[in-house]
């Protein structure tokens, strides 16, 4: 197996060996690898920690962030969906998911073939992977675990769009199919290394702006349109049932994101720390921006606005966090705070779809903003690590990959939804919806205070 992210740096190096800022980084990373491909215990410690942090983002971070925003009668359905996805995706990831995403059989730099789009089954059921297998400076099995936590959170993000109305069985089938047909190929094209389609184009997607946020955001938009709005939307008020739960989840997501972006370097070094720093700067700036806009617009800054802004800033900085400097963090934070605010409020209301918890407005739009701006603020002139070519060229590549991903995701998502609808039906009965999914689907109630 070839090791993606370190390959990423090597690959950048190949085309821009003269780039001053990259040389030292390359030296530090490549030399030990050439000398002897040995496990670094510090890197391993940090990626073990990062895996725990990213799992924590879903269990219970995202579950609480989303769960607090729905009405009391549906809170458990959200928690259930997030936890069930953790279970199902883990099993799929073991069975063949990891292999299809990261197997590099048949791939070659510059050659576009079937394996540029999808990996094979050589590592299905972790065949051939033992505790001694190595991938760069960490064990291969750790790469499996770390990437698994990303594969878990991506479909879990989509849950927010069809909250309070989707059948649990439909949710499971949809998510499994979506993981296989959308997540795995996009992940492979972007992260599997030399020979991957997006990879060979030089697309920058450090920790998943395209792979995670654009795929989830676009899928969310399509899904909420296909499944239709919640009964009563938008006339019936549906305020969050527990804002303290939502804010608790926000804190967990924020902290967990240190592992999401900081871990994506797959090492414990200055680049990982810089990724964490820009993550924090973007989150803070976006939160502050969103808060100020609300303050001006409505005279009252809300904690939901602050929290949503933070998540928007975190999502947006994700693709860029490995290549930008502090100023890039500020800029991406500001842009995503403002643009995601617009997308989740005025724009959503104008267009009328019921993206219940704003998955598209926050993750889709935020992921897009960050993917594009990574091509700008990655430039050495803006304090980034330096680009392969010009800013315009890089932005073009970024836009192309984002657009292709969006179109592909939309089409496949639509197809899966139609198939699942035919198979088991997407939506619960009206009676079940007004009773609430907790009692009608899971036979439980959230609170008996």
């Amino acid at each position, binding site marked *: 197996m070839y090791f993606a992210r370190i390959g990423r740096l090597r690959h950048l190096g190949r085309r821009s060996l003269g780039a001053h800022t990259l040389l030292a980084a390359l030296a530090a990373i490549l030399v030990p690898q050439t000398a002897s491909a040995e496990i670094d215990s510090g890197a391993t410690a940090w990626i073990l920690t990062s895996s725990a942090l990213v799992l924590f983002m879903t269990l219970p971070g995202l579950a609480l962030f989303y769960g607090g925003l729905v009405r009391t009668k549906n809170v458990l359905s959200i928690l259930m969906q997030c936890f069930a996805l953790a279970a199902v995706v883990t099993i799929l990831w073991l069975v063949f998911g990891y292999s299809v995403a990261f197997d590099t059989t048949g791939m070659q730099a510059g050659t576009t073939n079937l394996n540029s789009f999808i990996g094979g089954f050589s590592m299905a059921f972790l065949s051939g992977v033992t505790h001694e297998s190595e991938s760069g400076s960490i064990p291969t099995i750790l790469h499996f675990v770390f990437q698994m936590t990303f594969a878990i959170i991506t479909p879990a993000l989509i849950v927010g769009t069809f909250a309070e109305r989707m059948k649990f069985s439909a949710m499971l089938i949809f998510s499994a199919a979506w993981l296989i047909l959308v997540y795995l190929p996009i992940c492979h094209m972007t992260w599997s290394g030399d020979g991957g389609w997006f990879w060979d184009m030089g697309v920058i997607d450090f920790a998943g702006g395209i792979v995670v946020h654009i795929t989830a955001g676009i899928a969310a938009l399509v899904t909420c349109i296909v499944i239709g709005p919640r009964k009563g939307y*938008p006339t019936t*008020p549906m*305020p*969050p049932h527990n804002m303290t739960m939502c804010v608790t989840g926000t804190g967990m997501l924020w902290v967990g994101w240190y592992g999401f972006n900081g871990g994506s370097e797959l090492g414990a070094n200055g680049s990982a720390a810089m990724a964490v720093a820009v993550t924090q700067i973007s989150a803070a700036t976006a939160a502050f921006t969103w808060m100020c806009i*609300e303050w001006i617009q*409505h005279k*009252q800054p*809300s904690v*939901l*606005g602050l929290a*949503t802004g933070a998540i928007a800033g975190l999502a947006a900085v994700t693709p860029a966090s490995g290549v930008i400097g502090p100023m890039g963090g500020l800029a991406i934070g500001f842009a995503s705070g403002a643009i995601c605010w617009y997308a*989740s*409020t*005025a724009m*959503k*209301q104008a267009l009328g779809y019921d993206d219940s918890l*704003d998955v598209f407005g926050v993750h889709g739009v935020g992921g897009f903003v960050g993917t594009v701006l990574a091509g700008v603020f990655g430039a050495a002139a803006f304090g980034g690590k330096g680009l392969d070519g010009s800013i315009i060229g890089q932005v073009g590549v970024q836009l192309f990959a984002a657009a292709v991903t969006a179109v592909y995701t939309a089409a496949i998502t639509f197809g899966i939804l139609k198939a699942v609808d035919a198979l088991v039906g997407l939506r619960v009965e009206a009676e079940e919806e007004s009773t609430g999914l907790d009692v009608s689907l899971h036979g439980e109630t959230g609170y008996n205070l």
Partner: protein
Amino acid sequence: MRLIEAIIKPFNVDDVRSALAAAGVEGMTLTEVKGHGRQKGHTEIYRGAEYQVDMLPKIKIEVIVEDDRVEAVVAAITAAAHTGKIGDGKIFVADIDDVVRIRTGERGESAI
């Protein structure tokens, strides 16, 4: 016997309870309710979606008293719950036919 039902602002509960104690009323039952009257509520905004919250939290106090104490109790509540602002609340008085003290089985006024 009469039931005196007062719907007041949560903020005034302690004062009303003291006034009732001073008026010699020991037994009472409180319920958290939401009320709507002339008092206007407030707006909550979640991600740009505005909700008009016009049902405000109130406390309902129920007291059963002998007929001849009604006026004193009503006066005590009125005085204690009065702030002069909209939303101070209302008092309703109704007839009660019978009272039973479960512990002893007593009935009527002696059971109050």
